């Protein structure tokens, strides 16, 4: 067997380099560890240069997904609509949750559509690494492309279902106003928040494959605690202060309320939107995005192992 010290070996350094150990060769020629995690600023720069890939990957996934289902994109809208109907029957009529809320149907539908966006972003983020192992094992790119692309897919789907949502809102008698413009920054902040959560969950899901099984339960609990179909605020008025505070800053509730009040400032006939909600929404978006991004980047070179 030829070794590095064998002068006849094709592997051994020759001439001036003869006799150098591999480590000395590496040092002399300035070679770097293959696939090492780049420092954070460089990573961000690499990610930015891959933005076209991210968009193209997201669009391709969406097109591929719908080109196989016969009804195509229709399902994207039908599923949350069916959910809305069920929730309306159970919570609005049978449990009469609609009593305290002025305009229950749009209130409910906005909640369902927005929560669905959060839920699918978290779920697809959790699976984004394990679903793309083939890609990760074949090509080199900043892995953060994947959870970000999956979040963009969910955003594209939200935008499709927004068309239907606007229809429902109009049909329920809400008239368009300038406040509708606030939907845009609200969704932009929510996107940032979702991307951060998806990045963090991508790392967790890549390590703990069992997480994907557990997520539906965690998300359902979160949904029930966020007041998607009833006003949680009114049901815990006599509870300890810290629980009320927690319910108040719950990001899902914050983003749902932002969109609800943007569509109709008097959607809830008892309260108007407290101004601190926007501040909370900005804070959640920044904290989730920055922490999620750094958390994901820390494990960059470990994705795709085994």
């Amino acid at each position: 067997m030829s070794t590095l010290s064998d002068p006849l070996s094709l592997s051994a350094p020759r001439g001036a380099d003869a006799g150098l150990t591999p480590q000395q060769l590496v040092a002399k020629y300035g070679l770097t560890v293959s696939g090492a995690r780049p420092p954070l600023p460089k990573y961000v720069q690499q990610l930015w240069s891959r933005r076209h890939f991210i968009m193209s990957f997201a669009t391709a996934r969406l097109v591929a997904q719908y080109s196989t289902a016969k009804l195509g994109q229709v399902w994207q809208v039908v599923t949350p609509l069916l959910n809305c109907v069920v929730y309306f029957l159970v919570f609005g009529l049978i449990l009469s949750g609609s009593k305290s809320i002025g305009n229950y149907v749009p209130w409910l539908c906005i909640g369902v559509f927005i929560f669905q966006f959060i839920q699918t972003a978290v779920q697809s983020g959790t699976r984004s690494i394990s679903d793309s192992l083939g890609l990760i094992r074949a090509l080199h790119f900043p892995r953060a492309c994947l959870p970000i692309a999956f979040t963009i897919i969910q955003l594209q789907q939200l935008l499709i279902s927004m068309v239907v949502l606007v229809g429902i809102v109009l049909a329920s008698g809400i008239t368009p106003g300038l406040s509708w413009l606030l939907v845009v920054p609200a969704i932009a902040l929510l996107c940032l928040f979702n991307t951060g959560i998806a990045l963090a969950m991508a790392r967790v899901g890549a390590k703990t494959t069992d997480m994907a099984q557990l997520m539906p339960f965690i998300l359902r609990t979160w949904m029930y605690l966020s007041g998607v179909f009833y006003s949680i605020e009114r049901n815990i008025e006599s509870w300890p202060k810290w629980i009320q505070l927690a319910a108040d800053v719950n990001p899902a509730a914050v983003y749902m309320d932002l969109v609800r009040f943007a569509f109709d400032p008097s959607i809830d006939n008892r309260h108007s939107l407290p101004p601190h909600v926007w501040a909370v929404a900005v804070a959640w978006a920044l904290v989730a995005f920055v922490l999620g991004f750094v958390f994901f980047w820390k494990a960059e070179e470990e994705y795709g192992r085994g």
Partner: protein
Amino acid sequence: MADTATTNVKEAAPVDAQLARVPTVVVDDVHIVYKVHGAGSGRGSATSALSRIISRKRSPAIREVHAVRGVSFVAYKGEAIGLIGSNGSGKSTMLAAIAGLLPTEKGGIYTNGQPSLLGVNAALMNDLTGDRNVVLGCLAMGMSPAEVRSRYQDIVDFSGINEKGDFITLPMRTYSSGMAARLRFSIAAAKTHDVLLIDEALATGDQKFQKRSEARIRELRKEAGTVFLVSHNNNAIRDTCERTIWIEKGELVMDGPTDVVVKAYERGERP
């Protein structure tokens, strides 16, 4: 092309033992271990998942596969190196590790620039049309949209997909396996790399396309600093590589001139 394949590039190998060469890849006592999850129990229910996470036990279903065991070599600028060995001997694993796609358990792999695997296949989607796949594949390899536009026609022409009609606008799932393989190779070979790693890419398509792709590989080799080629076609190795590394069961058996190593491999003689 079976028996004409004796001389080609081999004599170009530098014999001058006094000249220092520029190393492009240093593989230093590398071990690679795959950890396989869920080898037994499958996915299971949410409650069993919960109990597994809470108990923090390494699931008993995790198995380890020690795929590469202590391989060392140095590759230099201008070399084309063949990797041979029986199925499952660790050739693909070695390439993926050089590309930095698999972390090493022990030892280190050091490279000049970022080596890339000719492995765009994984980025392509069968439900997409051929032309969308060309764009997606090129972007996945790190090209800019402008580069993609300028290369697009060359890629389609090289693949020959459109020779028999407008197939590039049909979904890839409608292609014959040969057609799909040709398109994949054409996309993958569209980019030039410092260190190029090719894993069994030549065994695709018909005779004419195989010749064309071998020529393209030689071209890529001229542009690239170093080429690694895995192939079960020993003649392709003889044609393209002057140096060959033989790996068996994750261990390096032989590393030397292609003639010597391939001959030993064909006779099954371990040194």
